[in-house]
């Protein structure tokens, strides 16, 4: 008798957006707790831990992503206004951005060219498939722009979206040790590199460092997205 009641409850809960919305929040709280216990290790980045927990849960309960997203979409929706709100930290640091305008733009172009050319060369050297390569090329660009670029140059938009997320996580892991190695202490420089290489993931991590790092990460993410939409199709013509 009892298992049947539980089963019916589960069927009801699994179909309502409430369960997956709440689970997303709980997974994130748990991930933050795990991260704090691990001394803030970037290997146990709260976003990665939360994603792993939720993917595990969906696999165990055999829940399709579309069902999960019906609940999680309410959180996902806030991404739009959050990107708009990056204008506020940019305004706060406007003097510094104005002063460093040309170095920032040129560093951004150098970063984009490095990301694209190194991806093409590495995939060809390692013998990867051409359409895999085309889905990897926009990996440092924020998801919605990356999907558009992948489509334009002949990759798979869905795979590109996944690749962008993994790249963001890798950037969060690699950034801190690289800055330490190069003795980069300036939060603005760190933030800019993280926003360029690891888009929103990097930006989110930078806001936990300081408002200045977050502002420059947001700036780099925006400018990289805008420039990449024009630059990447142009660069790929040389490799066609």
């Amino acid at each position, binding site marked *: 008798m009892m298992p049947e009641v539980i089963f019916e409850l589960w069927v009801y809960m699994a179909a309502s957006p409430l369960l997956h919305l709440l689970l997303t929040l709980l997974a994130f709280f748990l991930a933050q707790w795990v991260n704090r216990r691990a001394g803030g290790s970037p290997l146990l980045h709260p976003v990665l831990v939360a994603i792993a927990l939720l993917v595990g849960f969906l696999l165990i309960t055999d829940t399709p*992503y579309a069902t999960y997203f019906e609940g999680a979409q309410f959180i996902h929706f806030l991404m739009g206004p959050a990107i708009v709100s990056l204008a506020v930290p940019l305004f706060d640091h406007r003097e510094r951005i104005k002063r460093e305008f040309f170095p920032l733009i040129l560093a951004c172009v150098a970063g984009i060219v490095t990301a694209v050319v190194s*991806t093409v060369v590495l995939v060809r050297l390692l013998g990867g498939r051409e359409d895999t390569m085309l889905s*990897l090329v926009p990996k440092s660009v924020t998801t919605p722009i990356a999907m558009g670029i992948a489509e334009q140059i002949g990759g798979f938009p869905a795979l590109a979206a*996944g690749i962008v997320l993994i790249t963001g996580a890798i950037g969060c892991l690699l950034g801190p040790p690289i800055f330490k190695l190069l003795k980069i202490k300036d939060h603005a*420089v760190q933030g800019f590199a993280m926003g360029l290489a690891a888009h929103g993931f990097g930006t989110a991590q930078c806001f936990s460092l300081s408002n200045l790092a977050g502002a420059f990460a947001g700036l780099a993410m925006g400018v990289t997205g805008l420039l990449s939409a024009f630059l990447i199709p142009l660069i790929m013509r040389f490799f066609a």
Partner: protein
Amino acid sequence: MLEGFAVLLLFQLIGELITRLSGIPVPGPVLGMALLLFAVLLLKRVPGGVRIASESLLRYLPLLFVPAGVGLINHGLLLKQDIWVISITLVVSTALTLLVTVLVLQGLKKLWGIENDA
């Protein structure tokens, strides 16, 4: 707070409308950010409500990536095909991108005579 949130949504909406109508290959929210920045630069200050809404959203920015990240579950098969090529390429290329960006930015700032903050 609520007024500020409404302002953010309004700028996102304007951004979405302009990208839809013009076909510019840029997401609506990114254009919305640029327009809001332009607006507060003209105003020369950030209205209190907008600042509160912005800061509350940005504090939870990492959480907002979780639902999209769980979507990786759908790409398992595609990722498996070229797993080594993809892993090596992503790690090496991301490290190179970080390195080049930092070094170029530092170098150019020195060239422009801009002091680094500690």
